[in-house]
């Protein structure tokens, strides 16, 4: 295997998140290592999405620390996370429905554009050169995810499974080192799921991207992830390799046992 799991790049320590009196996350600690695929699972309302939102700075936990690449932070904004190489996709697709696939993916590179608004408005000189550079990167992503045929199609016209893939493309366009995927296979049929699994593995393999994903489909999680965190009612009840987690009685009781 070309990809070797490296050092811890993201370390979450004793994270607690409250919305008023509701405890979304209670005292959760886990880490993510370089190049691994890390799954977060748990029943509905367990706090999985909240966890992702904490990682990329949408929510600010009341307690706990987050160490990303050796840098400790408590308060962080999403754009800072993005500029540090964290990209994500959303549970309910967040794309510009009226824009083409190509334009949507181009937005993934916005953060890297250096020329100013005026240059872009005139599309002149450096702005034009820059746009061409970025377009090249975007085309590589399009090729990678095999969506050449819908390049110029407005996103709103695409079926759900493809929209999910476009979202992944947009995230990949930012060339992230850490990719957060919020239920990338939700609502897909078996074939679409298989495709998506292959793409997730390929991304991880080819670009060495570290991936944190939330997923309900146990088969998918057990197949593709290196380590799994299990949450229930905002608490961590299990953590380890898929096989270990699968056989953990606490996990079975909370999740696998009841719902499967």
């Amino acid at each position, binding site marked *: 295997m070309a990809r070797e799991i490296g050092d811890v790049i993201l370390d979450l320590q004793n994270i607690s998140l409250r919305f008023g009196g509701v405890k979304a996350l209670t005292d959760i600690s886990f880490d993510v290592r370089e190049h691994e695929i890390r799954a977060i699972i748990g029943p509905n309302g367990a706090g999985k999405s909240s966890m992702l939102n904490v990682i990329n700075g949408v929510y600010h936990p009341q307690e706990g620390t987050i160490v990303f690449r050796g840098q400790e932070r408590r308060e962080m904004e999403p754009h800072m996370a993005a500029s540090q190489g964290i990209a994500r996709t959303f549970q309910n697709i967040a794309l510009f429905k009226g824009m083409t696939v190509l334009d949507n993916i181009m937005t993934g590179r916005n953060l890297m554009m250096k020329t100013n608004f005026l240059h872009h408005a005139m599309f002149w000189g450096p702005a034009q050169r820059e746009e061409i550079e970025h377009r090249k990167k975007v085309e590589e992503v399009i090729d990678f995810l095999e969506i050449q*045929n819908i390049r110029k199609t407005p996103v709103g016209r695409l079926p759900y499974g493809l929209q999910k893939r476009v979202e992944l493309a947009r995230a990949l366009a930012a060339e992230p080192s850490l990719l957060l995927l919020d239920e990338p296979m939700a609502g897909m049929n078996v074939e679409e799921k298989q495709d998506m699994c292959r793409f997730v593995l390929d991304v991880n*393999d080819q670009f060495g991207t570290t991936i944190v994903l939330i997923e309900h489909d146990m088969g998918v999680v057990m197949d593709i992830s290196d380590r799994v965190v299990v949450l229930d009612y905002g608490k961590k009840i299990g953590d380890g390799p898929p096989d270990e987690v699968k056989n953990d009685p606490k996990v079975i009781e909370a999740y696998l046992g009841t719902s499967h």
Partner: protein
Amino acid sequence: MSDQTGQTVPAAGLDTFPRLLMHHAKVRPNRPAMREKEYGIWQTYTWAEVAENVRAIACGLAQLGFKRGDRLAIIGDNRPRLYWSVAACQVLGGIPVMLYQDAVAEEMAYVLQDAEIKFAVVEDQEQVDKMLEIHDQVPFLEHVVYDDPRGMRHYTQTLLMGLDELQEMGRIHDRNQSDFIESEIAKGATDDISIMLYTSGTTGKPKGVCQTHGAFIAAAQGGTQFDKLTDQEDILSYLPMAWVGDHLFSFAQAMVAGFTINCPESGETVMTDLREIGPTYYFAPPRVFENLLTQVMIRMEDAGWFKRAIFSHFMKVARRCGAEILDGKPVSFADRLQYQLGSLLVYGPLKNVLGMSRIRVAYTAGAAIGPDLFRFYRSIGINLKQLYGQTETCAYVCLQPDGEIKLDSVGKPAPFVEVKLADNGEILVKGPMLLKAYYKRPGATAESINEDGYFMTGDAGFFDEDGHLKIIDRAKDVGKLNDGSMFAPNYIENKLKFFQHIKEAVAFGNGRDFVTAFINIDLEAVGNWAERKGLAYSGYTDLAQQGTVYDLIREGIEQVNVDLAADPMMSASQIRRFLILHKELDADDGELTRTRKVRRNFISERYKVLIDALYGGADSQYIETEVKYEDGRTGKIAATLRIQDVKTFSPQAARKAA
């Protein structure tokens, strides 16, 4: 480059494909030879670049131990590097063997065994996986070279090698031994086998058809002269590389005329790529033309009333005079003016949407194209033509000449081709484009080429008065009437089935005095018609025996008779008597094959009484037939069927009417 435009290649000394390639690299080094859309942009390879790449692949293959006469399997979509591999293999005096990329591994195993393949160049991971899957069935397979390394990082099999690597290896070799390629090309001869294409094998196992350089070059030269193709043409290469037509258009003709081939980005983007390239020379099976038309019609239905009105008006104009204008026939000034206006408002934009603005010549073949469809494309000014040929004849026997287009003929014999009819009407073909042999099947080769050197196509046909060939049937189905004239049941049945009210027809006449027919009405079409007429009926059997329905069908058959009468070869085949069957012919009852072909012998035994009645002169006949229902039970349908006479026409009268 201006001094090289508009000319076809002189034949002297350029008698193999590698020589042609090197010629183009010298004469038009900077003209685009190939384009491929990659990363959203059309990448161009000039003839010089193509030649350089082919050299590198050839040297690389030679280093792997590829010898003269070895076979190289090539599997994948239309990619420039796969076309280069074909050329590289030919440079080394090898035989490229083209496989259909969508075949399953099992089918590939058969061809790889049959052709004793040691080397394969494949497109991507998908094809590599198939090769690995069948490797133990084809132990002599030693090297699999892949074009696209994607997803293959963890493949460690020693069998595999990337094409990039191979080319790199080849380039070093080419630098060190720069005369190697030239000496290999010099060893080639025009009657060496240049390619092996497998027949589809609908009857028995696929057979490898071996074609020589000379054969394909002759076919390509004939075609380019016939349609005056130059090095300025653009063609979209999207049909399977293993199909003879693609090899003729995208490889042989491109090599002969020096024009540009364009490879689409992927199978799903063909339509977009077609629009972007705007080819000048185009081939598609009828199905593709039909899909395009359907898409246009659906979009037109969504347009506003004003646009729809303009569209339908000018389509009427086009139907009236479009095809005539294209053929250069006299058309009234008013129509010409209207057509000009139509070009501006409708046909021009429409052609642009279809990606056909620049088309000079378009061909279709492979299946019968519906007359309406054919007329539509011609009427909006697209020079769509038909051709006829097989794998064994480099897809090159007959072509429709410009300005002499007939719906139901496949045109005149192409340059260098001699077409002759056997006594039973079978089409016999002779010319430089005939196959050299079926690979390792001397028996099959001897069977298909007669002692005078004619290839027996197995199709029956005849020449009309203008010397155009009409294909009518498979030769084995063609019989004779008692007066000795030809009887082609399929031809007649197809004509009948063009009527929307007739679903199925069975014609009889072999060894009889005249032709008769069983008819199946189309329950839906005739049912609608009956509803509009206020006709009451209880079911198929009842509707089929109504007098007015018989009148309706008889009118249709009379039309067919007019058609048949106009044709001296066919006028004896006019249908004299017919009946409408009391039940629909069904595959469950063994009357049709699963692909809905009529099982003639079975039907004539099962309905012997009806046939006797048709020829006996009775005007009705009682019949009882056992039928199988879908749940397996059997039942009986009984009815007394009417039999009616149909008017026939003298050839002269028919010609006036037509």
